[in-house]
């Protein structure tokens, strides 16, 4: 089976654009974090496609690093969301624009 490399990169570009659009249009901080997850995942997919195009394992190693980075980012981000909800009783990012305490 031969899949052109461009189509794999194109799929990851489409997913990245959808994630970016979600990050820009949503104001609920949970949805923004989910969109960031989609974007990280699509960036990892680009690494996998490139790695399998040149038949090297480096792309897969990079994906593992992206995965660990995403896990750390989500744990800190969700703790921040809980703090935000405790302070402002909402997950709307516009409400958290006062920047005090």
């Amino acid at each position, binding site marked *: *089976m*031969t*899949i*052109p*490399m*461009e189509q*794999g*990169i*194109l*799929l990851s*570009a*489409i*997913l990245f*654009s*959808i*994630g*970016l*659009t*979600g990050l*820009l*249009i*949503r*104001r*609920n901080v*949970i*949805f923004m974090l*989910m969109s960031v*997850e*989609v974007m990280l*995942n699509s960036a990892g*997919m680009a690494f*996998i496609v490139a790695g*399998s*195009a040149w*038949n090297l*394992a*480096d*792309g*897969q*190693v990079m*994906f*593992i*690093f992206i*995965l660990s*980075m*995403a*896990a*750390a980012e*989500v*744990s*800190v981000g*969700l*703790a921040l969301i*809980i*703090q935000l909800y405790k*302070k402002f*009783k909402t*997950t*709307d990012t516009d409400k958290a624009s*006062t920047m005090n305490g």
Partner: protein
Amino acid sequence: MNILFYIAGLCSIIATAKMIACKNAVHALLYLIASLLSVSVIFFILGAPFIAALEVVIYAGAIMVLFVFVIMMLNVSSEGIKEERLLLKAKTWIGPSIISTILFLEMIYMLLHQSFHPMVVKQLAPLAVGELMFTKYTVVVELAIFLLTAGIIGAYHLGEKEKTTLHRYLKKEELIV
């Protein structure tokens, strides 16, 4: 095998698009899990079975369970969904969507106006990945360990409960919003 790639790709695109348009947080999360599972199928087709397994176990398993717990803790009610509907007006999303569509079209143009590079997909065993990780990329593995440690400490620190003050004179003033 080619047709499987296209079906899985279409599934992931549809699921991700539904995810960003969904009002209910739990429904959006289910769509996100479907998208991650179809991406994992794509990884399997591209000859990375180890990564496909990691995607299911860590992304769709661990990280999404964290999301579910937090959404349960925040207790998103029907009022929240109504509020979302008010926030998601055409005026708010048309501008950013146009800009990201332009960027996306530029990317398509760049990708399609060059000679195609056919991939002959071969399965790469997990052995090669592990070997490379602990020989060539040892420093990066250690950096990832630092990052995860910082993540654990940060999540613990941020998620901590406020300490109860024993005397009323020691109490700080409440933040008024």
